[in-house]
């Protein structure tokens, strides 16, 4: 632009200008191409870099640590082969923690899915003040698990606890929520259920609203009552959503830490490890006993367990959906 705007300047200077300008255009074009090519990778790189550094590497390195003597303060020691795993698999504490983790997981996931389904079905009606009710069931989600645990810890207190006081009023014996195995699991599962039922209810509700309404109309014409509609239409149509919720709650639920840690002020999972979970055990071995080697062995075993269960979940859900497809085909054939 400068060269054409200054015609009085002739000779080598203007040539020089022209060359420089061409070069500039060329450079910015190259910059533009570079911009198009490299930008996408640049934009997605923060996630990948962070995931590798704080997610993937630590997870894999846990395997390396588990084959060594490794102290929290002194650091790496000798390589010991499978010694840490051997210790863990022969430890009473470990098997108790596995039992507790699965027990708490079942006690929290099964009732949660059932209650969430029923609540979602109720919320799916043509309600007044829809948003109010939906927000209402979601309130517990914003309360930290630690706070939930403190509140329910008092509700479930062995002495002068509210639930035991109510039991006494109706003439029942108090339950030792903290010292017995199953009651402590029920108490901890209740905390988990309190926080997550509303959340899952909304996921189910969204899936229910996506079910075509004419299915219900057809069922109504066939004379199906509401309960029958729920079991014959709603539940089968919700299968993908249910699989999604089961998979995510398995991965999260088997790593449960906060609630059992906060169930008493010592956080060791009870005198007899009644409610010590696997993740609690990892913390105890690693930071209380300063034995990173054994803690890593436990972490790695839990990782493998989650992997296997996820795989089983995946295969089961694939089988269910392919069965369903086959069933649908058969039905079609019968109808034809």
């Amino acid at each position, binding site marked *: 632009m400068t060269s054409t705007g200054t015609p009085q300047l002739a000779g080598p200077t203007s040539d020089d200008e022209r060359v420089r300008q061409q070069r500039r255009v060329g450079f910015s074009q190259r910059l533009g191409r570079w911009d198009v090519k490299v930008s996408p990778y640049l934009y997605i790189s923060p996630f990948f870099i962070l995931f590798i550094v704080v997610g993937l590497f*630590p997870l894999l390195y846990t395997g390396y640590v588990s084959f060594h003597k490794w102290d929290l303060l002194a650091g790496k020691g000798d390589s010991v082969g499978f010694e840490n795993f051997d210790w863990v698999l022969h430890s009473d504490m470990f098997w108790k923690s596995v039992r507790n983790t699965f027990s708490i997981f079942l006690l929290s996931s099964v009732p949660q899915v059932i209650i969430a389904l029923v609540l979602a079905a109720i919320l799916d*009606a043509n309600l007044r003040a829809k948003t109010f009710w939906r927000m209402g069931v979601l*309130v517990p989600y914003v309360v930290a698990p630690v706070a939930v645990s403190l509140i329910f810890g008092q509700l479930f207190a062995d002495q002068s606890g509210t639930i035991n006081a109510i039991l006494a009023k109706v003439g029942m014996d108090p339950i030792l929520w903290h010292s017995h195995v199953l009651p402590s699991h029920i108490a901890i599962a209740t905390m988990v259920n309190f926080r997550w039922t509303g959340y899952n209810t909304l996921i189910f509700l969204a899936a229910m609203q996506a079910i075509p309404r004419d299915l219900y109309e057809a069922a109504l014409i066939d004379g199906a009552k509401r309960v029958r509609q729920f079991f014959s239409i709603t539940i089968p149509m919700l299968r993908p959503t249910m699989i999604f919720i089961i998979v995510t709650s398995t991965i999260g639920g088997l790593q449960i830490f906060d609630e059992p840690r906060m169930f008493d002020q010592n956080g060791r999972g009870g005198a007899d490890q009644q409610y010590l979970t696997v*993740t609690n055990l990892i913390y105890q071995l690693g930071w209380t006993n300063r034995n990173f080697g054994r803690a890593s062995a436990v972490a790695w075993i839990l990782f493998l367990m989650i992997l296997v269960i996820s795989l089983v979940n995946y295969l089961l859900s694939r089988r269910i959906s392919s069965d369903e497809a086959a069933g649908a085909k058969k039905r079609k054939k019968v109808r034809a």
Partner: protein
Amino acid sequence: MSAPSVAAIEQFAGKGAARTAARKRNRDYGSGSERRPRWLTYTLLTIALLISFYPLYYAFLLASSTSDDIARHPIPSLIPGSHLFHNIKEVFDADIGFWHSVQNSVIVAVITSLSVVLFSTLAGFAFAKLRFKGRGPLLVFVIATTAVPTQLGVIPLFMVMKELGWVGQLQAVIVPGLVTAFGVFWMTQYLESALPYELIEAARVDGASMFRTFWNIALPAARPAATMLGLFTFVTSWTNFFWPFIILSGDNVTLPVALMRLQATFFKDMSLIMAGVVLSVIPLLVLFIIAGRQLVAGIMQGAVKG
């Protein structure tokens, strides 16, 4: 002549009139084939709501009483006592740095939310709208990482932080959460449908660089989903316990860890512990009252797509 559509009413008579008309229509005909439900439905819902709220109210009741009251009346009366402010003051005066932990929680939650929104939108923009080699497999990889139990890598993560000299520092909590797979996936899905290619092309023709296109076109278009993502990240960060509990220590902790220390210090005085619980819940309850609608919508949208 048929009645004017709700949209038409909105155009001529404003939003308020449209809302009234829509409500009237729903009342008269119901939406679709459905009738208004009967009282049984509302009774069940009210019970569900009471179960949602009672534990919080219970914490408030205990926080406003004394430890003697709690011992004498295990079932608290529904009328709050008069010791709330006294108990709150005692929590702040206690030697556990409660106020400092509130500040830390705010710092961590705000930085984490802003960063997750920015980096997730950036990555989502690339995945949804830019063409590059390996796009498909990389996106599948992102989704797959949501199923990886990264919490099980705490031991090496702790070693990394030790190498960096970050043990006990807030950045040890902030940095690992700067961008999440969920966030990237969420923004990718939203931008795929919400951002037309024409807008991007127009910006490119006008000579905007990629980053300017992102900043001026994609980011504004991503606003609704970005708000929801920010809210979810804020709640997750505010309630996070496991990693801060491991890596932070002394007075420099976040709120959930401070609550644990409160429990260890005052395990005999439930009224003080509950005062701490109430203090930790109030900020998020306020946030919920302001933005709970978006949280509900966010969960429901995520469910249909995911």
